[in-house]
């Protein structure tokens, strides 16, 4: 939270002239934060349980091109296509979870494999069916309202993000399932010994992660009126980075949805603020890295302070 305010103030000052601290400027970073935040929440939960999901990028891309081809080339009803997209997401999550749990292979590898398999399939099928990997979409007002409407320049994605954060917080801190997630990530064998269905927990979290990736794919497809099989690859690492900034430990067992929420804010503010500040964009990645490091260090310093005053 401190890091988020620090980063925001930094850019508020540097980018004042460009209107960063305006309704539109705020909408700009909110939109960016919301999109990464939606999927980072689920990825963060999965990381708390001790697993990684690197297939979210392909789910986003595959969803968007599936939706686009279905509505644009085959004139199908958008709601049916939506159902198909979410089914695809659920199946991907199930496959990821089942393979990871049954074979005990590192989820890093399993989901990397499904990432490549899924994007290869998406590219191959879309090219086979329509000779292109990118396409416009056709929607109905209902679909637009749900996934692409705006208030000013802020997207409805922000509402989805806030709603999912609330749900995640409630689930993690107020339900037995939440306890199971922490237990699974903290010490899996002890958790299993205590009767926690760790396999079930992981599979559910994998499915949830893929579903949020599908949601993001649909939101982007509807908002930008086009699907592209290559969309989303950037989120594969951006989502875990946001979770780590938000305090989720890479080793599992510790973290909170609120932390991930603020992590998304930091990420959105930095990514967008750099452009508003008018700095030479070649240095963008350097600034991003430096500011991310500063944000994480600040976070861990304050956490140590808070924990030591036990």
């Amino acid at each position, binding site marked *: 939270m401190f890091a988020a305010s620090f980063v925001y103030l930094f850019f508020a000052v540097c980018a004042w002239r460009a209107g960063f601290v305006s309704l539109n400027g705020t909408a700009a970073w909110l939109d960016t934060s919301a999109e990464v935040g939606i999927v980072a929440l689920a990825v963060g939960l999965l990381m708390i349980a001790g697993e990684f999901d690197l297939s979210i990028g392909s789910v986003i891309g595959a969803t968007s091109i599936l939706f686009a081809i279905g509505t644009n080339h085959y004139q199908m009803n958008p709601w049916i296509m939506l159902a198909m997209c979410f089914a695809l997401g659920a199946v991907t999550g199930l496959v990821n979870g089942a393979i990871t749990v049954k074979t005990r292979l590192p989820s890093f590898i399993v989901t990397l494999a499904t990432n490549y398999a899924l994007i290869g399939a998406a590219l191959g099928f879309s090219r086979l069916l329509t000779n*292109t990997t990118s396409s416009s979409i056709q929607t109905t007002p209902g679909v637009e309202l749900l996934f692409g409407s705006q208030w000013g320049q802020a997207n409805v994605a922000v509402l989805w993000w806030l709603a999912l954060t609330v749900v995640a917080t409630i689930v993690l801190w107020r339900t037995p399932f939440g306890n199971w997630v922490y237990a699974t990530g903290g010490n899996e064998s002890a958790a299993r010994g205590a009767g926690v269905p760790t396999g079930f927990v992981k599979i559910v979290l994998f499915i949830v992660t893929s579903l949020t990736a599908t949601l993001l794919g649909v939101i982007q497809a509807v908002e*930008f009126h086009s699907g592209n099989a290559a969309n989303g690859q950037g989120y594969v690492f951006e989502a875990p980075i946001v979770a780590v900034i938000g305090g989720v430990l890479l080793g599992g067992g510790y973290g909170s949805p609120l932390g991930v929420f603020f992590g998304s804010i930091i990420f959105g503010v930095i*990514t967008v603020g750099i452009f508003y500040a008018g700095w030479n964009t070649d240095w963008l990645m350097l600034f991003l890295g430096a500011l991310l490091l500063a944000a994480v260090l600040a976070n861990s310093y304050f956490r140590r302070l808070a924990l030591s005053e036990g």
Partner: protein
Amino acid sequence: MRALAKLGLGFAWAGLIAASAVPSAQAKEPFIIMVSGPLIEPFFGPLKKGADDAAKALGVEYQYSTIQDFNNVQADLTRLVQQAAARRPDVLVVSDFFPDSMGPQIKKAAASGIPVIIMDGGYESWRDVGGQAYVGYDSHLVGAQAGDLQSKAGVKHGLCVNQVPGNPALEAMCRGYVEAIKAGGGDAKTMTIPLQDTQNPQVNLQAIKGALAADVAIDGVYALGPTQVESAIRAVDEAGRTGKVEIGGLTVSRRVLEAVRDGKAMFVVDLQGYLDGYFGLTMAYQKAKFDMLPAEPIFAAPHFILQGDAQHIIDVNKEYAGYRGVE
């Protein structure tokens, strides 16, 4: 003694069969390898379609060798050239996107006796790397022509948006654009989109919007991809500067064509990748079979699509999807 005679007869038979097989081996179809860009980038879909169509028309098979992502593009493409040369094709068609690293490998292939045709990327150095023919375009010139168009329309502060930083062709294009705007009495600069966000429409939108907000004097944008052009149009709208900024783009998509038709964008440059692929493969076939190649480079691009032609191109694309970009 008898066994030896039988053996001798057997060998003679084998020799006869082999001898009769040789003439048909000489009549075998040419083995062509094409190394070019990845299909996740909209430009290369039509390019490969062009090569596929040419191959079908000529009745020949070829191999299209490419990378799967942009994570390590320079090293991956160089490795692909190496692998292609190792397979000793009859002709090698290469898009020389990174002359510094790919150039030496191409030169090696050419020196080992494989005829090389440079297609699309690498116009500046196609003869130096040992290429025997070239089909494609001159990026610097395309950028300059784009800048010229905008400058004549009154643009004094231009912005070139490059979504693949480090790609020499796109950088040359932005350089040409900037020089042309400056020659017209204005100034211009380049901005880049981080590589991992190239395909993220949200970040593209916010980045261009931010750049417009940071520099309110900008009155001309030249974006090097269809996603970027659409983001630029929307960014100009959201920044409240509709009508005050001229937008031009590279690579065709239906939405960009509609924007040009409706006056929201000034022009879109069609690099006509389909022609690159078609002529590249045809030239390879003709070299392999008849040892004939064009004497001068063939420029398949650019074709500037302006407001008047946009609707016609939209109609053509609807009937023939995949020949010219995204539908």
